[in-house]
């Protein structure tokens, strides 16, 4: 037994290595990212000092990049916890190397996305007013509540399955022992502990799915609860959720491919994992197109004048390039790349995922700006050009994401080691039994 344990540890040595070996690359990356973040922070302080005038927002386009990115980042965050919960729930065995990475995306991106409405405030110094004088009737507070719930749930959901791995790091000794000791919560790997942990994870994964769905639904409600043309639509809730999962999977694929390359995890993240996930991506792409089609067809067919103003602004007006770019990035490219086995290589999938992420960002842009730019009354059509401040905060947010991920992978294994081990030791037998139970029994037997 002792012997065997040692060898399994050795097998998964590749997963521990990034934690204990710090190369020059790490410091350079962190340094560069910190510089970008510092610059963004400086730009933000400048914005607080001078007022929101330093952005490109105006009347009537009163919301800009910040809200676009808010919706976008929260969308990306659906990758994680939701996908991992669905995969766990459906007992998909190929989930094992993926879940952890997905959950980390959620936790980090959610924190970034959740900060965006605060960045967007004209008076961030008064943000505490929502505690003393808040109105739960406002969709913005629905957001505050559901994002807090999702953040808490997904951090817990990230943390619990990590406990056995943290205990492994603790037992290895070495750096930061007290830290791992603290976080491992006295895990010894006893049967009882395993049972407790599994039960908790099972409850959580059932809980986390409705919370995740609620988050993006509520974000869509920010828009659809107003009376504005292009926003006031009943389809928005599911449309946003689909878009969120769509962009989330794409982001997850990008992260997986990046780590596979930098951490040499080819042995863990195999082509088959990418193929399965990219099939999901393809399905979401079709679903997304279906929703987009329904949304715009009803608008065009009804041809309500204000609605038409917005639609024409998107399709033939100043936003045509973004609108059609979105269709190409979200539908045409992924469908072409992902439907043919020939293109479904790692490179092909990476390409499709990147276009999807860009496309989904464009989608958020297309939803937020044109409706604001076309006031209902006979006022001039608005225009919006993001300023340097908005761009640097956008890039800063991306940098925070990468930095968060890099730091996480410095302290914790980004692939769940114990789940891989469990897969090796138990699930082959279990799956065999499960498949047998799906098959018809001997003739004449009924349950």
């Amino acid at each position, binding site marked *: 037994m002792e012997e065997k344990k040692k060898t399994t540890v050795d097998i998964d040595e590749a997963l521990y290595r990034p934690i204990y070996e710090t190369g020059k690359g790490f410091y350079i990356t962190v340094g560069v990212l910190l510089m970008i973040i510092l610059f963004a922070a400086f730009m933000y302080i400048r914005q607080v000092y001078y007022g929101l005038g330093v952005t490109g927002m105006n009347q009537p386009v009163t919301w800009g990049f910040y809200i676009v990115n808010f919706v976008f980042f929260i969308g990306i965050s659906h990758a994680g916890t939701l996908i991992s919960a669905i995969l766990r729930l459906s007992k998909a065995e190929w989930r094992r190397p993926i879940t952890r990475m997905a959950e980390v995306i959620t936790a980090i991106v959610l924190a970034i996305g959740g900060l965006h409405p605060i960045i967007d405030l004209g008076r961030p110094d008064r943000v505490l007013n929502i*505690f*003393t*004088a*808040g*109105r*739960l*009737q406002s969709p913005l*507070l*629905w957001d505050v*509540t*559901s994002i*807090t*719930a999702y953040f*808490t*749930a997904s951090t*817990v959901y990230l943390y*619990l399955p990590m*406990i056995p791995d943290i205990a492994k790091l603790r037992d290895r000794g070495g750096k930061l022992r*007290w830290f791992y*000791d*603290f976080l491992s*919560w*006295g*895990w*010894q790997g*006893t049967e*009882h*502990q395993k049972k*407790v*942990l599994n039960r*908790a994870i099972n*409850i*959580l994964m059932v*809980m986390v799915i409705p*919370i995740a769905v609620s988050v993006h639904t509520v974000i869509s409600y920010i828009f659809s609860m107003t009376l504005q043309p292009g926003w006031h639509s009943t389809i928005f809730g599911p449309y946003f959720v689909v878009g969120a999962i769509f962009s989330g999977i794409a982001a997850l694929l990008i992260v997986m491919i990046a780590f596979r390359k930098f951490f040499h995890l080819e042995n863990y993240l195999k082509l088959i994992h990418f193929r399965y996930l990219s099939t999901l991506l393809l399905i979401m792409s079709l679903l997304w197109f279906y929703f987009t089609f329904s949304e715009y067809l009803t608008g065009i067919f009804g041809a309500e004048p204000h609605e038409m103003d917005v639609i024409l602004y998107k399709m033939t007006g100043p936003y045509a390039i973004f609108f059609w770019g979105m269709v190409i990035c979200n539908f045409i490219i992924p469908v072409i790349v992902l439907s043919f086995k020939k293109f479904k290589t790692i490179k092909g999938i990476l390409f499709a995922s990147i276009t999807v992420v860009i496309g989904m960002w464009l989608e958020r842009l297309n939803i937020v700006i044109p409706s604001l730019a076309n006031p209902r009354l006979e006022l001039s059509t608005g225009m919006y050009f993001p300023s340097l401040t908005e761009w640097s905060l956008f890039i800063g947010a991306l940098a925070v994401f990468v930095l968060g991920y890099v730091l996480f992978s410095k302290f914790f294994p980004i692939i769940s080691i114990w789940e891989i081990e469990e897969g090796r030791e138990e699930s082959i037998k279990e799956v065999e039994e499960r498949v047998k139970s799906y098959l018809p029994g001997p003739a004449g037997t009924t349950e």
Partner: protein
Amino acid sequence: MNGEEKKFHDKIIYMAQLASISFIWIFVAGIAVWILNLISISVDLNDAPGASIGISIIAIPVFFTLAGILTYVFVGFHKKNNNIKE
């Protein structure tokens, strides 16, 4: 690390863990208080109190369940440990 030191170390860690669990409960309770406060404001101002109550009915249990799960795991882990030692 000798026995004495280890015991001390374990104790400190255990205290810290207890503190983190209670922190979660404080957080959750804080959210509940906040939501209740908002409800009382909306009742005072007669500003669609139904909506706020509806939201709170969903939100508060969610947070308490989350804290409950964490506590369950923590307690569950430590209970068995003691049994082994006995």
